[in-house]
């Protein structure tokens, strides 16, 4: 396609040697860059190699784990046996932790998304005194990593008696300043103020406007925030590590860490095969979530990037 477009131009100048002038940059013209391809290939290998390693090693028995080549399948293919053992080890501990993670993700990340949507919409479409102050606080809060708040939150929660309960994980997960900021920007551009005025003129109450109009228009943004929140909550490690002492409330991340620590302790039983298989099982749901929600994710990220 590129060739045909430029064919007439080149034929006219066929007699002369091609001038070495630089052509104007054309965004639609596809040029092959070996450097770029090489860099991207390296990036691809860098991202996929650990996954491949995980898959390979999750298929080995504990005995074969250290006696066969780590980068290729070796010995008895034990993936399914490992999965069965992982799910049943120590009284179905893994399934229990899986349930906990789901609870934290559904309530924590779901709640965070809902709150961010509500707040973002309010900030974008309503005027009230102190709005600039709220903006400053939200932007400031985006800059504070949640890890830094874990210890102060722990001390606060232990005073209130919330430590060692699921609330210690859920409540901090509900607060997502980055999601709020994203929803604010998204709502500002995605919802025409005229539409809201029209609805008000038609006699719709604010709650009805929010649930019937706003939520539908904000769906791509919400999915983006939801994905951010789901990933953050699913991978949350530090907060549950310090908040929870009871394995019965552990999420998968902390539980797997405990299995790993047990394998590396004086007199402990080595269950590295279960740690690996457990890690593999842990990332499967998050991969599925990404693939399923991918198209919303893309449209959500680019929303508002071009002023219409």
């Amino acid at each position, binding site marked *: 396609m590129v060739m045909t477009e430029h064919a007439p131009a080149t034929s006219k100048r066929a007699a002369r040697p091609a001038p070495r002038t630089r052509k104007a940059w054309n965004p639609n013209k596809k040029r092959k860059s070996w450097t770029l391809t090489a860099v991207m290939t390296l990036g691809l290998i860098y991202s996929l190699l650990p996954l491949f390693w995980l898959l390979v090693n999750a298929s080995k028995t504990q*005995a074969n784990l*250290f006696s066969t080549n780590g980068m290729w399948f070796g010995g008895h293919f034990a993936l399914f046996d490992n999965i069965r053992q992982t799910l049943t080890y120590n009284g179905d501990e893994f399934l229990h932790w899986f349930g906990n993670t789901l609870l934290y993700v559904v309530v924590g990340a779901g709640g965070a998304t809902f709150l961010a949507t509500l707040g973002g919409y309010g900030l974008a479409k309503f005027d009230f005194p102190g709005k600039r102050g709220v903006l400053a606080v939200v932007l400031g809060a985006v800059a504070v990593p949640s*890890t830094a708040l874990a210890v102060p939150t722990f*001390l606060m929660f232990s005073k209130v008696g919330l430590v060692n309960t699921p609330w210690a994980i859920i409540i901090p997960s509900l607060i997502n300043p980055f999601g709020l900021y994203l929803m604010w920007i998204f709502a500002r551009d995605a919802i025409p103020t005229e539409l809201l005025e029209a609805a008000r003129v038609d006699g719709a109450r604010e709650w009805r406007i929010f649930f019937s109009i706003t939520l539908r228009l904000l769906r791509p943004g919400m999915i983006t925030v939801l994905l951010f929140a789901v990933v953050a909550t699913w991978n949350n490690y530090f907060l549950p590590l310090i908040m929870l*002492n009871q394995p019965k409330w552990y999420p998968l991340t902390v539980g797997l860490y405990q299995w790993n*620590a*047990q394998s*590396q302790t004086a007199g402990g039983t080595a269950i590295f095969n279960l740690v690996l298989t457990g890690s593999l099982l842990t990332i499967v749901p998050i991969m599925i979530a990404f693939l399923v929600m991918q198209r919303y994710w893309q449209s959500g990220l680019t929303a508002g990037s071009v002023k219409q």
Partner: protein
Amino acid sequence: MTATTRTARTWRRGAAVLAAGALAAASLSACSSSSSGSGSSSGSTASASDIAAALQKKSSITVWAWAPQTKDIVAAFKKKYPNVTVNLVNAGTATTEYTKLQNAIKSGSGVPDVSQIEYYALPQFALAGSLDNLDDYGLGSLKSDYSSAVWDSVNVNGQREGLPQDTGPVAMFYNEKIFKQYGLTLPTTWDEYVADAVKLHAANPNEYITNDTGDPGFLSSMIWDAGGKPFQTSGTTNVSINTQDAGTKKFADTWNKMISKGLVDPVTSWSNQWYTGLGNGAIASLVIGAWMPGNLETGVAAASGDWRVAPMPTWTSGAPAATSENGGSSYAVMKASKNALVAAAFDQFMNAGEGETIFANEGGFPSLNSVLNSSSFLDQAPAYFGGQKINQVLSAAAGSVIPGWSFMPFQVYADSIFPDTVGKAYSAKTDLNAAIKAWVQASATYGQQQGFNVTVK
């Protein structure tokens, strides 16, 4: 928009890394800042009948432990005392648990009644006044049931701060197949050990007598074995550290030879390569605690039948057997316990009663003399060790541990910074004496900040 998002995310990630580092430091100092707490109350001694009565009442205790055998010990306890509910919680392994325990003590809620604490961490909690003196429950009389070295380990500032469960008397685990293949004689002294190291590595550059990249537990056990006592604590706050300690020098000089000649496999213990090396014979021996058989059997199944156990080499030829401890746990009754009588009774059941037999039967290395010397324990001949009656060697080691050792009351922190100083000397092949001095100095600075009066000689 896309650009903002991406930079915001990258920035956040960077900030998170920074903050995590800062936080690690902050939480560490939060850990031990309560060490200026009160000493011990010389409470009235509970009589045996008080304890017996408490055990018949309906009550509950919480036990923090990570040893896998605890589950069955708790079940046996419940069977014997059906009115007592025991909540067994695995709050994390070793340092993870200590951090949580410190946090719970600091916040004043969620402190368990009984807690598993390794010997090297016991002084930290004991001197901070977080543990009950077990003499108050009449458990001081159990002294004769343990070897004097083990009893010393739970004895902090003249108080019995815990009951020993497992111990790690050090022995030499060696790969007999490799020893035979390369014609090595079993070393009985450290000079012979070094000679074997030279011979093995010369015969095959892929073979090493052992691995080490700087392991604080190993260092302590080696200094201990060499007769060193570099750390002394008097009262609850006075710590003196002797960098001129003869035992420390003896070990450092020997190990300097090993490291400078590249005779030690630069592989970190518990890493992938470590397990691989133990399995294929690249690491031919380990001078390590008596709890190692369980780790070998489950972690290094590939080398089944190859490994044997021998006493730890001695420093002078013909010297009587002398060894040290590497690892091992005690169980303490927490001062915050509201049900201390039952907690103490559980501690006794677990570690000085039936629990210790269950522990040994399930692969733990016991501390109680009666279990250590029982024929059922001594006569075990695991196939993994080619049918060798390894417990006879290990039990003898338990009896020849040099008494009188003590750790720094901030040993947990000190061990955590070990790689920064001594670990670096391993990789740079510089003098260990100087590195140990630097490590001790950095640890002392920390101890000072925690309110200890530390003198470094």
